[in-house]
Structures are given as C-alpha cells and as structure tokens.
C-alpha cells in the first residue's frame, strides 16, 4: 500500500494548497473546488485497491473540514473513481490531455452533485446559482491549469516511493 500512501500525501498537499487559495480569495467571494484532481490520476493509473484507498482517504480529509455528513465527499469521490476506473481501458489514458479532460469532467460532476445536496439549505435557490456558476467556471479553469503539474507531482512521488505504476497499453 506504499503507492496509496504516496498518492494520499500528494492529495493532502493539494487540499492544503486549495484551502490556502480559498482563504486568500475569500474577500472576493471566489471559491475553488478541485474534486476532480483527487480522483483522476489514481483512477486512471493506479490499481483499483491502491487508487480507491487513496481517493477514499482524501475524501474523508475533505469531509473532516466541511459541514457535510461525514463520508459525503468520500462516497462521491469513490463513485467517481469507480466510474472512471471502469472506463479507463477505453481511453488513451497515458495522454496528458485525456487525463486533464477526465479531471475536468469529474470535477464538474462532483461540483454539481455537492451543489444539489447543499442548495436546499439556501433560502433563495435561484439567487445562489450565479455564485455557483462563477465558482464552477473558476474551479474548472484552475483544475485545467494545475492538472498537468499535479499529475507530474503524483508520478514523481510514486517514483520517489519506489512504486512502479502498472504499464499502460
């Protein structure tokens, strides 16, 4: 499980960076969500057990700092992970563009799933949508921007942990 631990370490770092970015952007009321990055690399590259373990732990990390039922992020991340894992043999998953596209799609799906779960608490739902939309656009832009760096970081961390991901082909 060294691979799962190594990938979880990078996801821990990602959560810390995103939290700091959100804290800095709070005055502008802009909020970033990078759920797709927690799932994409481990679902596309790692074996099921290692990848799913890392994704579940990262989901629990997100749950611990959010006012949602504990396990919500973990369940959504795990579902996205399994969906992506089942599709991975049908796509050119060694291509960086494919990985980034997968991260963007998963990010969109997770954002919409969490929004639909949280919107019932907002008194004026219609008024909340413009904010959700702007957060989603900013989040997708940031995910597209940092995904290549983050995937390279995850690959390098696996190398340092002397974990050889299975050959893609």
């Amino acid at each position, binding site marked *: 499980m060294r691979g799962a631990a190594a990938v979880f370490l990078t996801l821990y770092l990602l959560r810390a960076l995103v939290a700091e970015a959100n*804290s800095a952007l709070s005055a502008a009321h802009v909020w970033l969500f990078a759920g797709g990055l927690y799932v994409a690399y481990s679902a596309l590259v790692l074996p099921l057990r290692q990848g799913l373990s890392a994704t579940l732990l990262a989901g629990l990390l997100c749950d*611990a700092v959010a006012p949602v039922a504990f396990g919500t992020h973990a369940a959504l991340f795990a579902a996205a992970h*399994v969906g992506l894992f089942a599709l991975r043999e049908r796509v050119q998953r060694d291509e960086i563009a494919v990985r980034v596209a997968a991260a963007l799609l998963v990010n969109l799906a997770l954002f919409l799933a969490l929004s639909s779960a949280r919107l019932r608490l907002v008194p004026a739902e219609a*008024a909340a949508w413009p904010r959700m939309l702007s957060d989603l656009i900013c989040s997708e832009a940031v995910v597209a921007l940092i995904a290549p760096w983050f995937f390279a970081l995850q690959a390098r961390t696996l190398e340092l942990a002397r974990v050889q991901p299975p050959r893609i082909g």
Partner: protein
Amino acid sequence: MRIGQSQRFDQARPFVALGAVLAAWLVAPVALKEFARASFFEMTAPITVTASYASDLRRFWTLRLHSKEELIEAGRDQARLDASYSLAVQQNGELQAEVERLQGLLRMPPMEHFRFEHARVAQRDFSGWWQRMVIRKGRDYGIPEGAPVVYSGGVVGRVAEVRAYTSVVELISNPGLRIAAVVEGDTRPISYQGAENPVFGAAKGVVEFLPLDVYASATAPKRLATSGLGGVYPAGLTIGRIVHVEASADGLFKTGEVALDPRLAELTEVTVLVPSNPG
C-alpha cells in the same frame, strides 16, 4: 465460457468493491465516524496553523518597512483613540453599576457575563454552500461549542466545532445559520437567516416575520441587531442593515433583505464571548 464469466466479473469488480466499501461505512458505529472525523480534522490543523503564523510573520516584516514618521503619526492617532475609549469605559462602568442597582431593586436575574477571548483567524472557507472560518484557539483556551463570536462591527457568527487548538466559526452569512433579531428601536423579535453570497460583492441575509409597520430601503436602511432571545447572543449586537422589505406571500408579515458588513470577508482577528457561568 469460463473466460467470458471471468471477464464479466473483472468488469464488475470495481463496482463490487465500491458497494462493499459503502456497505461497511453505513454499518460503521457513529463513535468510529466521529473519531475518524476528529482525527482527519486534526491532521489538517498543523498546516492551517503554520500557514497562518507564516502570514502573521509576513505582515510583521511588511509593517517593519514603515518609516518612523508613519509610526509616530499612527501612535498619535492611537493615543487619541485611547483617550476617547478611556472616557467610554468610565461611562460604561457607571452605566453597569446603574444596571446592577436596578436589577437588585427589581429582583431581576443577573445578566449573563462573558469572558472575551481574542483569536486570530487562521483560514477562511467562503463557498456558495457554506461560510466558515478557522480560528487559532480551541479546547486549549476553553472555547465552548455554540459560543457567539463578535468583532468591532458586530456579530461574526458562532462557534460550530471546537478542536484541540483550533475552532471552526460559522458566519452569519452562512445559509444554515438563523438568529433571533430585532429592528433597532423595536422590541418585536424577527428571524434572520444567512442567504446569498454573490461573487465580488458583500454577503446578504434575509429577515422573516417583519411586522407590517416596519419600512426600510437602500436610502433609509434600518439597523438589525441581536434580540438576546435564544440565549446565545447578547442583545444589541449589530447583524447588518435591512435595505429592502416587501410583503410576504401570506400578507401577514414582511420579508426583507439584509446587507452585511463587507469586512466580514476580510477579518483577521475576532473575539469569542465565552460565558462566565456556562450551563
């Protein structure tokens, strides 16, 4: 035939694994989930607190770049403020003594007293779904869950979670937070709830059950303050300003829009009101 079955099982294996994980999670005891939540939160706390201290250090070095003339001017302004606050403290002391004398005469129960616990803001988390901040004091300073949090502009929110050395504060702009409030100069209680948090703009709240004779507009706003009902917030603390009212659907009351102070999104220090006699 066997190869086909094996392939089908291989395809279904991820979903079987997901089902097994979800089933195990559903039957896991609540105590285990609570323990896991606290453990994962504490795992994130060192980074949050370290980043906050690093930010303070950066601010310190930035302030050191100010010239001596600027510091002298700031010191002079501060001395003037101190003088006016000293007078206010004396007046406050006299008023407090008067209140206690009247309470004694009328045999009223004593008002709740609070200990002021100042805390630095370590991290802010303002999404469209929730509005929270992490402060750098927790169980180590005796912060209780549910305690009101204030700043110079009024109410910030309430303590939602207390951890070992950090606490999570739920802001008044959080859509899930409700407070019993009153319009300034009126004693009838109304309900306030956090609402919209538009991008690049100040957060807003809504008020419900406003009496029909209350009027407010953007040009003539009404101050909204805590009512003191509910036992969490002391009375008279500013929540925001009612800038728009309209008749509710049933016609019995009005609903209104509350503009919150934009400084709420930039706070670096807040005060937790810790009840002196909890329970």
